[in-house]
């Protein structure tokens, strides 16, 4: 039961063109493709920490590195990293402790997440094919270090369609400070039809959470009454036009699209309005905190979205192309890791831990897969004159997953004694993607789409399901 074939057959039956199909994925309950096997997870929330989160300061405990503090990391001088030659070994800037029944090590950067470790599975042996932000972000999101490929969310919606009939199937919540490295094509549909691309929700704009949801407020002629009347008239025109072209299903689909757009005008403001969440919930996500609040809001919104049937939500914890200067705009801590990871760590800690606890409390964690990842890790050797920074490291980073069929409290794979390279069960994004698709009931080798000569996959020609972290 190959999903791509299912869909291709459907397209052919629909008379060529993607019109009919489009609706099913964008906003619809009908026409969902069947899974390859019974799914454990029905939906995904992915948190992406762009810039490169340090593994040795967060989840990957390396006592040996601490022991070698101040000793040359690369005594022979053979290595050249992205921006520098390695300095001395630099142990974690935060103290590590064991937590939970599972006794997983977490650094003091994440006091709140540390209380959730028994729900989290850690892949300590992640690595990437690129140590450049753009290509590595693309790889983590699309399986390829080049622009132009569909993101995981696009693949999942292509494969499974939507459960919501009044919200997009794939929503992205970018960092309010700006776009991640590589821009919006991180959540693009690549060569998949455009309806599989993410719809960005702008939480800072309650009047217009989706671009063009309503006419600009300063456009006087477009009153809500006129809007409605115009849509009615439009439908009449379109129905008359359709009369002599009944075989063209795209025309009918287009009429329906306007109806769905009208529904979206009601549902989108409702879902982004956090005010009817209880005070306790708002407190849990700390949504009014000046620094951690914006990310907390995104996490809370993600929960509301999946609650309403959205299939895939991606949240960015960090930006890139923004002009703010006080701290680094994302995790890319070349000069001062205590400052920058210190800031972003607190942001992630609050939002992500609240999300896990809230989902669990609502009974949703069981069938909601939560993924937290970054594009690559950082070097165990210090960077910069003061030695407080760390350069890029494609050789090792940590990703964690929770909920949706994940076995909590386990660790998978390992880096070397300094946390420099993944040595035990090295895993690329392919394995993370294969595992996630597996939990959603999809065999990653059979979710394909023909493009320029190749039946493309999210996992290219690679990928193994990591059974060790499955419940």
């Amino acid at each position: 039961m190959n999903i791509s074939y299912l869909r291709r057959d459907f397209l052919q039956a629909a008379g060529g063109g993607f019109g009919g199909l489009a609706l099913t994925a964008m906003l619809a309950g009908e026409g969902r493709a069947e899974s390859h096997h019974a799914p454990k997870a029905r939906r995904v929330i992915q948190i992406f920490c762009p810039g490169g989160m340090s593994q040795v300061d967060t989840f990957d405990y390396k006592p040996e590195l601490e022991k070698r503090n101040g000793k040359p990391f690369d005594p022979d001088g053979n290595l050249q990293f992205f921006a520098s030659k390695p300095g001395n070994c630099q142990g974690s800037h935060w103290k590590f402790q064991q937590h939970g029944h599972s006794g997983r090590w977490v650094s003091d950067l994440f006091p709140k997440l540390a209380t959730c470790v028994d729900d989290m599975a850690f892949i300590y042996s992640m690595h990437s094919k690129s140590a450049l932000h753009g290509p590595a972000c693309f790889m983590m999101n699309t399986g390829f270090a080049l622009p132009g490929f569909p993101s995981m969310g696009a693949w999942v919606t292509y494969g499974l369609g939507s459960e919501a009939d009044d919200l997009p199937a794939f929503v992205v919540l970018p960092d309010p400070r700006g776009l991640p490295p590589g821009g919006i094509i991180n959540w693009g549909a690549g060569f998949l039809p455009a309806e599989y691309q993410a719809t960005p929700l702008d939480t800072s704009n309650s009047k217009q959470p989706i671009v063009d949801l309503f006419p600009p407020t300063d456009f006087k002629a477009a009153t809500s009454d006129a809007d409605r009347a115009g849509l009615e008239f439009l439908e009449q025109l379109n129905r008359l036009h359709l009369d002599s072209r009944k075989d063209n299903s795209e025309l009918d689909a287009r009429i329906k699209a306007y109806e769905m757009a009208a529904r979206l005008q009601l549902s989108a403001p409702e879902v982004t309005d956090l005010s009817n969440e209880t005070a306790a919930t708002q407190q849990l996500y700390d949504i009014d905190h000046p620094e951690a609040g914006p990310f907390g809001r995104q996490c809370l919104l993600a929960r509301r979205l999946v609650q309403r049937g959205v299939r895939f939500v991606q949240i960015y914890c960090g930006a890139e192309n923004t002009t703010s200067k006080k701290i680094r705009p994302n995790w890319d801590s070349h000069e001062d890791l205590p400052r920058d990871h210190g800031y972003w760590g607190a942001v992630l800690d609050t939002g992500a831990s609240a999300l896990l606890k809230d989902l669990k409390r609502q009974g949703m964690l069981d069938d909601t897969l939560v993924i937290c990842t970054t594009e690559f890790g950082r070097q165990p050797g210090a960077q910069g004159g003061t030695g407080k920074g760390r350069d890029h490291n494609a050789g090792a980073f940590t990703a964690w997953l929770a909920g949706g069929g994940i076995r909590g409290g386990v660790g998978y794979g390992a880096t070397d004694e300094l946390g420099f390279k993944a040595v035990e069960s090295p895993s690329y994004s392919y394995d993370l993607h294969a595992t996630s698709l597996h939990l959603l009931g999809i065999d990653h080798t059979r979710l394909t789409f023909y493009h320029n000569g190749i039946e493309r996959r999210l996992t290219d020609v690679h990928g193994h399901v990591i059974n060790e972290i499955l419940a």
Partner: protein
Amino acid sequence: MKMLCIAFMACVVSTLHAVADERVDFESQIAPIFQQHCVRCHSSSDRKGDVSLATLEDLKANEYVIAGDPDGSYLIQLVTSQNGKPPEMPKEAERLADADVAKLKLWIQQGATWPAGVVVKQKAKADASWWALQPLMLAPDAHLNSERASSEQADSSDLAATIDAFIRAKLKEHQLQSSPPADRRTLIRRLSFDLHGLPPTPEAVEAFVNDPDPQAYGKLVDLLLDAPAYGERFAQHWLDIAHYADTHGFERDKRRDNAWRYRDYVIDSLNEDKPYDRFLQEQIAGDVLWPDDEQAVIGTGFLAAGPWDFVGQVETKSPELRRSARSLDLDDMATQVMTATMAMTVNCARCHNHKLDPISQQEYYQLQAVFAGVRRDDRVVSDMEVKTYEEQKLQLTKRRSEIDFEIGRLDGEGLNLADIVGGGNGLGSGKHRAAIDPRNAQVQTRDFGKLDNVVTNKFSTSDFAFIDGVFIPDGEDGTAEIPVSSTGTAITGLPKTSGNAWDMIRNGPVASQHSPELGGIDFTQAPHSVLGLHANAGITFDIGAMQDAMSGQARSLDNALRFTAKLGYFGAVGGHYADVWVFVDGKQVTHFPRLKREDGLHVVDIELPSSARFLTLVATDGGNGFSMDQVGFGDPAVKLAVPAELTTEYRQRLEDLRKERQKVTEKLESLEAPARFFGVVAESVVPEVRLLARGDPESPIGDALQPEAIGSLAMLNPKLGTLESSEGERRAALARWITDTDNPLTRRVIVNRLWHWHFGTGLVDTPSDFGFGGGRPSHPELLDWLAEELVRQNWSLKAMHRLIVTSKTYQQVSYVDGTNGGAARQIDSDNRLLWRQNPRRLEAESIRDAVLFVSGKLNVKQGGPGFEDFQYQEAYAPIYTYITADKPELWRRSIYRYTVRTTPNRFLTTLDCPDPANMTPKRQTTTTPLQSLALYNNDFMLRQAGYLAERVQQDVGSEQPAQIIRAFELALARRPTSNELHLATDFISKQGLFALCRSLFNSNEFVYLD
């Protein structure tokens, strides 16, 4: 044939059984088994179960194969049934025949020899007999052929009839027939959007509908093909394939401000109907084949049109990351050329042999070798233009310098020594921070640190005007004789130094200078200047030459000069100091021992009598190391000792000179820099290309590869040169190979693209993949006939357009009703047989352009830099913030848009405008609620609806029926039906004209073509 084959196999098997002792030949007997049954999953690139059968390594390492012991070999257990269960392997291929198992056993028995270097590779599904690789078929149908051959000057309608004959023949096979022709109103709208990407004007519609001439349709086609909007329309199709954009893409999506010249090149080439073979040749190697033809040179912008990773190729310090980015860059170039021109998916052979098509991994890298010698960069359009420009600039600069000099001489302002060190004439023509190298008197522009290869006390003669030479002094405890002039003048008595030197003698601060400021003066700010002289270094100026230059009839006095400066130590405070010395003709005239920052500025004022020849300035390190010894002579000047009064005559002369200077300066400033475009430039040497195992740039294997094309096209010679061929020769050879008239793919591919653009689906429905993974031609004979016709039409694309759109097939109705529906919909729901025309949704750009056209706001300005409908903010990764396009500069056609890769225009993306990271041979059409929102609520759309309302009001006044009729005519190229008129009258009276216009822009009919 099949029978024979089976018989042969049987024969082999029985032979094996008969003579079990005969040696099994690995390559002919064992390798095919692995190839057929195993390596698809167990190869070096896949290694399912951690075992590869591509080479012997894995098999031996894990006891899959134990030489001499077939029964102990795990491999044999896997492929034979155990305990009554079917064999475990192969999982996804046919099980091995018993005879094959027997062969394997025998091979192991005999020692499992695997000849060195043999790698078992999966066989491609298609081989050289694949249809697309065959020569063009001549149309088999005799009457089609003879009809053609008999009339050399057959007009296009006869030829178009040939198309219809092919189509009808196929329909007939399926008992189907063509649909009736569409009415003229439908046809003109279809043709306008198809050929121009714009709707027709109501006036053009009426004229065409009422034209009594039976040739009216043909005339309309010619008219449309001749208009510039044709090139603007089809350029977009070509740029889709070239994945063109105006920024680099990737993480730092920097601007590519000269890219537009290639976009204009494509538009112009199409409009002038450049022969297609020439069009391709120019885009691949125009700079080599026609270096003096600007357009041909700009054509190579094609090779550079795709994304480019600045961080990976330039910014990072890691050589490994650079190799990786470069490898992907070459892949992009080779892939684009081969898929665009020949629809060969060579990119699939980067990591392994192509799994479907006969393209080996080696051939892929041989193709890369064609492009290995170029990189993407801005490039001047014409070397001639550059030469002229530089000559003019040089002449004007020279003249201005002469004038300055004379003014200076008349005016007595003297010569600035810092300017001279910067390569100038002493009057301001030198470059700030340009320098002279104290080791060898060479010009230097970049910054240096501690100098290597220092030889102390060696005088280097200089070619600079007024500089005799330079040296790096070491007094060796006062004993050393240090030569300080070209005539052998020497000084003694200098102290011992460290013998080290830092950076250059500069016009400005030296490298890493602590501060340019001393004594309250910032010497980098006009009108100040500073001669940077870091210890240890010395420089000798040619006073004699200065006297000659400054003397003249304007002056009545003798040639006595004076040297003035503000000397200081620009390094940091805190124990740092240097010694500074001034000599005239080898005699010390002043000495500043232990000069340090705290001393501030010393005024230097030294008389240079008319007998003086050389002025020597020296800085030594004070014996405490040379760190921080940043000595500088501020505002250093040599001028006449006694300024003299000017005569009237010379005052006039001075005035004339100043006027002339003004003129020359204006000319200099108005000189236009030579045009640049974003294309490819040659590397100084062509790097060697080797096959990369698994496509990994860190794993090159084998010998350097020659440039070579694909061997499976048997009619062509794939050789494109040797290892010694220059990069230009390589590209030129590839261009010729691709456009060789015997190359069947190039022609099939372009006529199929034309077909795809005119019908929405190609005869092959994968326009950039003619391989096994792509579609099969629905009308192979027609495809080949069109490909032949292209050459008969001298590769004219316009002729081919004309041919296709004047066919009856093209002019059919697109709807289905009782007359044409029934059977056709059952038999051919996809309409691949073309029993009707396909209805089509407009592309994103066409929707935008049509809105502007209908509202009357379209700005038809052609060519030039793209319009920017965003605010640009410089940053590490620049920020592009879109604005509402609401002024004439932003109302140009979408083809002239400045296209940003990482931040595409959201409005257009929503309407299915593709991501220019991808080569897009085929646009996709989706229908989403976000599109409805964009068309209904977007600020641009609302404003345009407002402008349409204004236009209608202007055209017909405020009468309602007239307004409605006019709005329909403009937007939909027809008058409203009485029913529509009735509905619209009711609507407009309640909601107004604006609301009507807004709804029309959103209507299905507006965005769909019948």
